[in-house]
């Protein structure tokens, strides 16, 4: 065993512990044990988050591409239509298979669901499917002519290429819809005409409002964070309460307060009328629109800007500014050339945080947003609860999530997520 001492590449290799094993191996074992112990501490929460949080979200987002319902209902058609080249109408075989599927779907009561699915692609197709399914049992061959006899829409090539596309289990159509694109007659992807675009303007509006809220938070947050950082700790701790109390107060309370302040019969309008700035008839509509959303969201997200700014400004020694002044810089130059560049990490951290939270906001826009202040989250909720178009909700959700994750990654680069602090 002492022969190992001949190994001269490393001293540690040659050293032995008292039970005769090499020190290096023992050290490696100890490190491994520590690693494992640290990991085991994290493991329960990791498993919990994976099971109750990440997995459900993953499954939900999978719905944006996976929609097998239509193909399962029209399984005969799915096989028959595979060889159709899309140039003319499909052959008689396809029509025969389709009528057989219609009859079965009517019997199994699955026709409504399949009809709803195709209705997302071609409006009005649901009633075409359900009404034809009712008559399908009585149809005689040749099915092609018979079906077109029932409703002449069955003779449209566009309809059949849509059916062919939907019989697959995987679809891109929800993503296309959420980017305001669709398939045209020749199965090419085209952009919706301007006046029928819904989601692209909505994404733009979400980012626009998020950006505005972010800018307002910088404008309002920078001065008070600066003041807090230069005041003696006792005073600044007292003033900090003004930042932290809103932070700790329920979101709904703050939103309610803004309704009371901004509504037509609210406090701001009352004061303006009292001061004769506006007349009683011309009260300003400040809520249930975009302005209301922006004001309330700025108020709600401002602490998220002040806290990171404050923690960065706190670390900047005041002597730097004094040094700049004594070297002849004016107050303004000293501020812009010496102080401000050092606060940029804080501005970046706060901005990304505020923007991330703003574009995912749901409650406040839903309550005070009205028609012009709704964000992408509200539309996702609408598709989840009202129109039940879960595929589209999932597609919109994953696009929103993707933009948030990019920013989250950026945030991690700028500050490191473990540097985040509250209060």
């Amino acid at each position, binding site marked *: 065993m002492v022969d190992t001492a001949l190994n001269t590449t490393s001293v540690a290799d040659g050293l032995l512990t008292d039970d005769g094993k090499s020190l290096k191996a023992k050290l490696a074992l100890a490190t491994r044990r520590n*690693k494992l112990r*640290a990991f085991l*501490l*994290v493991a329960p*929460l*990791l498993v*919990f*988050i994976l099971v*109750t*949080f990440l997995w459900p*979200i*993953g*499954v*939900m*987002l999978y719905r944006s591409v996976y929609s097998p319902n239509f193909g399962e209902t029209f399984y005969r058609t799915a096989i028959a239509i595979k060889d159709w080249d899309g140039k003319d109408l499909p052959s008689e075989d396809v029509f025969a298979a389709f009528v057989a599927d219609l009859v079965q779907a009517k019997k199994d009561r699955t026709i409504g669901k399949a009809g709803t699915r195709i209705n997302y692609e071609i409006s009005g197709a649901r009633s075409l499917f359900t009404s034809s399914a009712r008559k399908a049992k009585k149809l005689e061959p040749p099915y092609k002519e018979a079906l077109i006899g029932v409703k002449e829409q069955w003779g449209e090539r566009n309809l059949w290429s849509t059916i062919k596309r939907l019989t697959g289990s995987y679809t891109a159509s929800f993503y296309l819809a959420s980017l305001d694109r669709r398939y045209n007659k020749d199965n090419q992807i085209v952009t919706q005409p301007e006046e029928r675009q819904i989601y692209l303007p909505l994404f733009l509006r979400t980012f626009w409002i998020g950006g505005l809220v972010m800018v307002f938070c910088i404008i*309002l947050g920078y*001065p*008070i964070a600066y003041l807090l950082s230069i*005041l*003696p700790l006792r005073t600044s701790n007292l*003033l900090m*309460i*003004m930042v*932290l*109390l*809103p932070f*700790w*107060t*329920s979101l*709904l*309370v703050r939103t*309610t*307060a803004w*309704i*009371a302040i901004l*509504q037509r019969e*609210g*406090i701001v309008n009352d004061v303006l009328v009292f001061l004769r700035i506006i007349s009683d008839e011309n009260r300003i509509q400040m809520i249930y629109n975009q302005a209301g959303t922006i004001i309330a969201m700025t*108020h709600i997200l401002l*602490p998220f800007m002040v806290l990171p700014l404050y923690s960065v400004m706190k670390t900047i020694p005041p002597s730097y500014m004094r040094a700049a002044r004594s070297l002849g810089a004016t*107050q303004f130059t000293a501020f812009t050339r010496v102080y401000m560049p050092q606060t940029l990490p804080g501005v970046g951290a706060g901005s990304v945080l505020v923007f991330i939270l703003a*574009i*995912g*906001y*749901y409650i406040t826009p839903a*309550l005070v947003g009205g028609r012009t202040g709704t964000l992408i989250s509200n539309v*996702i*909720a609408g598709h*989840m609860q009202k129109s039940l178009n*879960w595929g589209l909700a999932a597609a919109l*959700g994953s696009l*929103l999530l993707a933009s*948030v994750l990019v920013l*989250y990654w950026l945030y*991690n680069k700028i500050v490191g*997520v*473990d540097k*985040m602090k*509250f*209060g």
Partner: protein
Amino acid sequence: MALPSYAGPGERIWYYSFRVVCGAIFLFLILPVLIVVPLSFNAEPYFTFTSGMLSFDADAFSLRWYADIFKNGMSAPNDAFSWAWISDSWSNAQWVHSTKNSFFIAIWVTILATSLGTLAALGLSQSELPFRGALMGILISPMIVPLIITAAGMYFFYSDVGLAQTYIGVILAHTALGTPFVVITVTATMIGFDRSLIRAGANLGAQPHTVFFKVIMPLILPGVISGGLFAFITSFDEVVAVLFLSGFEQRTIPRQMWSGIREQISPTILAVATILVCISIVLLSTVEILRRRSEKMRGIRPV
């Protein structure tokens, strides 16, 4: 930083106007939170100050909206005050019901999130941990992912496993949302933790669990409690997941407020809001006191 005696007039103007601007911003922050307090004592069912309130007419103020919190939903709200009235309110009043739910759910969430989060933070603060950044990223993600996506995902998942419209479903969902706050707060406390104390404890013959309860725990306790309070308030305020996951039985205070704001807007909401503001003042003060205590323990003193 006081104004130096050699400051010129320009600097003087700047000094005072800057403070005025900051004062205005502080008012912008705090006024909306405080404005609900006087409004909740309105005798009229309005969301604004009546002329009587502005002239401090005693008749313009009332506690009727606070009484409404206890009465709304009762089978016999106008009976004389008695044990029967109290038990009627306790079991039938909507706001009382949702208050019970809110506390029940939030307390369970606090227990679960604090234990899971503290353990994870202990692991995360060890330098040996592999993939530290990635793990931290995953554990913090519930705070970053837009709530609507979380809620939608959980809605499908909990419906599939039969936990939708149950207390367990809401508690699990809120625990996931609350743990990041515990992880962040406790990890921040662990940064100032002197690791040689652990070795000292072990050196003196203490078992690992003794070291944990006698050495580590007392030192990080302020951080753990703050994290727990953050988890509590997260659950107590959360409404999106509740909207998707809870049934009528699991209604919480924010859920009740949500439908109150959307459907029948009554000053009862302002009365509830006032109570919630008081709760947040209590929680905030507790966290502040704990933070000072923890700073004192680590030898940081206010200047």
